[in-house]
């Protein structure tokens, strides 16, 4: 492997990792606030891919992209209101089962509406432009993905640490009842969390599918699971953790493929999950437990 091909693979890996990071943040935020693994998140990501296909049929990409983001946000918020909110005081297992049900519902709905055949993902001309730095050449999307991911994460961290809604999110994630006593409408805060998660999934979907060219109703399953692993690796509940986890998994997977072990790349991710759960269940940046009595 020459140096430039190595760079090439690293770049591809970082780019894939960026898309994973955006999806992983959705898992980690929802977990942080509801203690729920939102199994439908990967399928929201898949639906965003379909939304993009249909939006691009008649609209220019400048309008299609924001439109797809808005529709995906609505989908995410509606799912929370319909499938999770009524179970707020139910045992945690019930809401988890509801999430799994929504995941299958979305997959089957997509199969029913769009058939199981892969649909070509539309080309966004400027993202596909070939870009060259030294000997390394790639389409623009590969360069843009990690940069955009980092910008979005920095923005999100600012929102969470320095705005009123961010403060409310941190409060709600610790203590529902006391947050209510402050006058916080927790349902609105939870909706906002789902809106942000779904927005990032939509951005992730557009970047991810631009590189992969087609969408099927099951396109969300494996990336969804891998991003869940990324969130666990980073320490579920931690946003920077989810980002780092996404990048690590994207990079490892790409490098394994480049080394000729593509058969094992998925197995690697899930082996990693088992190893983290065995040796460091709180992940790299997981919540420390420092409760004072």
């Amino acid at each position: 492997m020459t140096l430039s091909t190595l760079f090439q693979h690293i770049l591809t890996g970082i780019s894939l990792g960026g898309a994973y990071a955006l999806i992983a943040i959705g898992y980690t935020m929802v977990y942080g606030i509801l203690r729920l693994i939102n199994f439908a998140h990967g399928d929201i990501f898949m639906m965003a891919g379909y939304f993009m296909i249909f939006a691009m049929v008649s609209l220019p990409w400048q309008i299609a992209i924001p439109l797809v983001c808005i529709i995906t946000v609505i989908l995410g918020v509606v799912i929370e209101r319909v499938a999770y909110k009524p179970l707020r005081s139910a045992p945690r297992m019930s809401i988890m089962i509801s999430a799994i049900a929504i995941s299958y519902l979305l997959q089957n709905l997509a199969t029913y509406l769009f058939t199981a055949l892969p649909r070509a993902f539309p080309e966004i001309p400027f993202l596909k432009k070939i870009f060259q730095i030294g000997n390394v050449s790639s389409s623009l999307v590969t360069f843009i993905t990690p940069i955009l991911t980092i910008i979005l994460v920095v923005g999100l961290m600012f929102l969470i640490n320095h705005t009123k809604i961010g403060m409310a999110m941190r409060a709600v994630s610790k203590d529902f009842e006391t947050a209510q006593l402050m006058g916080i409408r927790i349902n609105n805060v939870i909706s906002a969390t789902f809106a942000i998660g779904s927005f990032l999934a939509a951005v992730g979907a557009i970047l991810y599918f631009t590189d992969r060219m087609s969408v099927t109703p099951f396109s969300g399953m494996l990336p969804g699971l891998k991003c869940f692993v990324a969130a666990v690796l980073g320490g579920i509940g931690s946003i920077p953790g989810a980002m780092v986890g996404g990048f690590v998994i994207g990079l490892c997977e790409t490098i394994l493929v480049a080394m000729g072990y593509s058969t094992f790349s998925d197995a690697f991710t899930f082996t990693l999950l088992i190893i983290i759960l065995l040796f460091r269940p709180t992940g790299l940046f997981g919540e420390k437990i420092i409760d004072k009595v």
Partner: protein
Amino acid sequence: MMTKNNLLTIENLSVSYGGIKAVKGISLTVPEGEIVTLIGANGAGKSTILRTIAGLVKPESGKISYRGEDITGISTTSIVEKGITLVPEGRRVFPDLTVLENLKIGAYLRKDNLQDDINRVYKLFPRLQERSWQLAGTLSGGEQQMLAVGRALMSRPKLIMMDEPSLGLAPIIVNDIMNIITTVNKEEGMTILLVEQNANLALRIAHRGYVCETGRITMEGTGMELLNDENVKAAYLGKSKNK
């Protein structure tokens, strides 16, 4: 006849928790500007009454009115908006928010400038100012209680309800907390509904007291009357009868 306006009136309130009746038709009034205390043993239903007023628990029957307006069963957010705030049992400050953020979140529904109120709280509790950038989880129990009271003041309430503010605190700190309650009442003119197991302290600072036993109010009177009542003495103040 009452000389003062009643800020809060509760009539025949009943509350059930998962099939068990925790509050069985109690009535009480909180006159404006006074400290009213609700004393009683563990499990008597005192906390449930406060949680119901705060809108965290929906009552089965009965009526809660605030300044003559029926507020039974409305949302916690609306209750806070109207000027009633609850300092919950166990303080419940947000451990990974800073002291300053905890104060700011107390004023979550307000849109005006908070600086005057923050200064006012810091004047009341200078300790909090020294620690304003510290995470609330690292404060001592007494400091957390000060923060919980300060946080409640930030919403500019008319009525503060406090659930067991002395719980788990060292006796010397308990005295501080009781002084703070008196100060808030006198200097800020705040009406206070205080739930306490430490009946002795609570009755000494309260204008009026109610004794709560297994979901019912069994006695009421001024703080002094209850302090000197033989039954109260025997049951809650650790002094035997007829001595």
